[in-house]
């Protein structure tokens, strides 16, 4: 049984009409209802992206008439953040194709060696890997967020929590003096009360922050 997908949206940016027809044929072999868009110029591809929203995958020819190689690598870097990009290229451009992998392309295919199976497999891999990387990125950002909140708690311990504790230490030291007049002793005891109330409020605040972190345990993030 040949591998098949019910549907797939593909943007092909390819200036050679023959190469495009081949790609189209190969895709039709494995996708029952593909949504195919063909752009000859990079700017048209860009327009499709803006007008029709996300595609499942972009097949991108490396030599296009309206962009330089440097520009294209930069575009790949940006586009591959939200859509997987598979490069179509010929033997002469193989070094350049390798470079594109470093800037975010999922894979490159040599036009002379493509067949329907190779193309389909590459597209499928690109989509799956992209999905996996996306969930990984979300996971990392959830952990970063949690770290930020843990740092806040650490900061509170060091800068806020210690203030009333230091006060209590000094107050107790003064209260040890047995010759202290009654009125002054009462004043100091009032400060002891204020300081312990403050400590209580700070602890409540830390407990709430810690609880919020527990509620967003990264293990529970999809």
């Amino acid at each position, binding site marked *: 049984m040949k591998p098949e997908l019910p549907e797939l949206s593909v943007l092909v940016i390819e200036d050679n009409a023959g190469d495009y027809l081949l790609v189209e044929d190969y895709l039709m072999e494995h996708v029952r209802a593909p949504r195919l868009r063909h752009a000859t110029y990079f700017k048209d591809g860009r327009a499709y992206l803006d007008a029709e929203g996300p595609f499942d995958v972009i097949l991108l020819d490396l030599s296009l008439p309206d962009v330089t190689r440097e520009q294209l690598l930069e575009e790949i870097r940006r586009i591959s953040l939200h859509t997987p990009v598979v490069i179509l290229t010929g033997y002469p451009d193989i070094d350049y194709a390798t470079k594109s992998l470093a800037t975010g392309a999922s894979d490159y295919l040599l036009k002379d060696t493509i067949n329907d199976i190779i193309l389909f497999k590459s597209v499928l891999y690109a989509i799956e890997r992209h999905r996996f990387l996306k969930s990984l990125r979300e996971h990392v950002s959830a952990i970063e967020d949690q770290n930020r909140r843990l740092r806040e708690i650490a900061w509170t311990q*060091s*800068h806020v929590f*210690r*203030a009333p504790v230091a*006060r209590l230490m*000094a107050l107790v*030291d*003064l209260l040890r003096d047995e010759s202290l007049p009654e009125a002054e002793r009462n004043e100091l005891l009032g*400060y002891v009360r*204020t300081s312990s109330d403050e400590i209580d409020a700070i602890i409540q605040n830390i407990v709430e922050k810690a609880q919020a972190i527990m509620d967003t345990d990264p293990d529970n993030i999809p």
Partner: protein
Amino acid sequence: MTTHLLIVDDDTILVFLLRKVIEKSGRFPVPSTHPNGSHALEHLRSIYNPADRYIILLDINMPVMNGWEFLSEIRAFAKPENTIVAIVTSSTDRADKEKAADDPYVLEFLTKPVMAEALIALKDRIDAR
């Protein structure tokens, strides 16, 4: 040479306690107290005289103007030779300590609660300069 003492801290209970300890130590003049850096800066600027000596007990975390801002503002007119700052903070943060060590005005980093012994040691160090 007249010595002036300034307490810069927004925690009123702590200022009260610090005044008690200063009194107990018997080694300092009566302090002026300031709830933030800006208040202390205005006071220092108005009384500053190169022939006098200023000891400043400075908290770090304060509203309006914090201790670091205060330290950068006094550079405009005060000399480190006669303006001596002791950071007095409840923070046990190592980064704060390292930052304080690099400042030309800061002689000491005191962690609250400041006891009489620590103040006496500070005064001895200042007098020995």
